[in-house]
C-alpha cells in the first residue's frame, strides 16, 4: 500500500469514527445529570446499612465486592506475569549492583534527593497505613494506601542504594505477603459462605457509630487485605524492574 492510499484509508476511517463519536456524544445526558435510580438508592441506604460513611468504599468492598475480588486478582496475575517475564534467563548473569560497582559512569544520587527521600519515608508509611485502614470513614482505601506504602520502599531506594531496597523487601517475603493479601480477601468471602451466608456477605459486627474506625465490619478488613496485596505487588514489580536494570547483564560469566 502506498503512503497516499494509506492516508486516504486513515482519513476515511477517521471520518466514520468522528460521525459515530459525535452521534454518541449528542445522546449523552446533560453535564452533572444522573438519570439512573441506583446511585440515589445507594446514597440513601448505604450509611445506615453498612455503618461506613465513605459510600464509595461501601460500594467497592461490599455492594460490588465481587467485582473488586476480580480487580484484585488482575493485579495479582499482573505482578506474577512481570515476575515471570523478568526472571533471570539463560545467558544472563547477575553482577554487583550497578550503582555500587567501582568506576561506574553513573551520576551519584544528589544529596538533596537523598535527604528529601529520607525525610519522606516515615510520613509516607504512616499515610499509606492511614489510607488503607480508613476506607470506611473517609475517601481512601486499600488500593490508594497500598500504592502509597509501596512508594515508601521506592523512597528507601532513592535515599540509599539498591541493597537497602533489597534488604527491606526480599522477594520471597514480598511474594508471601502478596499472596496473604490476595488470599485474605478471598478468604473473607469464603468465611461468609462457611457461615451459610452469600459470598462476601458482611458477617462482622457493624459497630454502633457510623464513621468510627471500628465500624463497617468486613469493609475495613477487606480494605486492609487489599492494601497489603497492592503494596506487595507494587514493591514486587518495582523490585523486579530494578533487578533487571541494575543487576542482570548479558553473558553467562
Amino acid at each position: 500500500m502506498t503512503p497516499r492510499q494509506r492516508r486516504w484509508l486513515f482519513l476515511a476511517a477517521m471520518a466514520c469514527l468522528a460521525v459515530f463519536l459525535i452521534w454518541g456524544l449528542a445522546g449523552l445526558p446533560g453535564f452533572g445529570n444522573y438519570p439512573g435510580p441506583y446511585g440515589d438508592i445507594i446514597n440513601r441506604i448505604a450509611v445506615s446499612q453498612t455503618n461506613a460513611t465513605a459510600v464509595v468504599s461501601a460500594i467497592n468492598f461490599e455492594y460490588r465486592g465481587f467485582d473488586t475480588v476480580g480487580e484484585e486478582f488482575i493485579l495479582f496475575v499482573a505482578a506474577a506475569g512481570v515476575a515471570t517475564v523478568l526472571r533471570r534467563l539463560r545467558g544472563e548473569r547477575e553482577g554487583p549492583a550497578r550503582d555500587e560497582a567501582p568506576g561506574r559512569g553513573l551520576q551519584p544520587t544528589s544529596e538533596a534527593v537523598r535527604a528529601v527521600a529520607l525525610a519522606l519515608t516515615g510520613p509516607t508509611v504512616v499515610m499509606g497505613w492511614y489510607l488503607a485502614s480508613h476506607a470506611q470513614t473517609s475517601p481512601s482505601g486499600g488500593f490508594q494506601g497500598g500504592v502509597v506504602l509501596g512508594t515508601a520502599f521506592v523512597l528507601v531506594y532513592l535515599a540509599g542504594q539498591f541493597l537497602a531496597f533489597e534488604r527491606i523487601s526480599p522477594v520471597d517475603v514480598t511474594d508471601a505477603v502478596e499472596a496473604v493479601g490476595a488470599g485474605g480477601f478471598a478468604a473473607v468471602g469464603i468465611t461468609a459462605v462457611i457461615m451459610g451466608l452469600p459470598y462476601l456477605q458482611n458477617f462482622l459486627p457493624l459497630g454502633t457509630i457510623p464513621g468510627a474506625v471500628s465500624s463497617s465490619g468486613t469493609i475495613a478488613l477487606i480494605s486492609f487485605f487489599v492494601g497489603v496485596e497492592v503494596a506487595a505487588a507494587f514493591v514486587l514489580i518495582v523490585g523486579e524492574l530494578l533487578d533487571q536494570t541494575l543487576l542482570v547483564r548479558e553473558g553467562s560469566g
Partner: protein
Amino acid sequence: MNVTPAVAVVTPYTVAPGLMDALQVTILVLVAIAATAVVLTRVPVRQAIVLSVYGILLAVLFLAFQAPDVTLSELTVGAVALPILLLLTLAKVKRPPARGRPPRTPRDQEREK
C-alpha cells in the same frame, strides 16, 4: 427526563457556583494542554516526567469535580507508580549490551539492504 431541582447546601466551605465553574474549566484546559504536551514530547525520559505532571493535573481535575477517591488513585498511580515503572523500563532498554555489537533492529536490517 425527571430532574429533581438541586438543593443548595450552605456550609462554611460553600463557594459561589460561578467560581467552581471557573475552577473546573481552568483545570480542564490545563489537562488538555498537558495531554497535548505528553503526546508532543519526543524524548521518552522527558515524556515520563511530563506524564507525571499530567497525572497530577488529572488528580486536581478529579478533586475539582468532587471525586476525592479517584483523586487519590490518580495521584498514586498516574503521578507516581506509572512514571517510576516507565523510567525503570527505559533505564533497562537504553543500556547497551555488555560486549559485542549492539543487536540489530528490523530498521537496521532494512537500512543495510
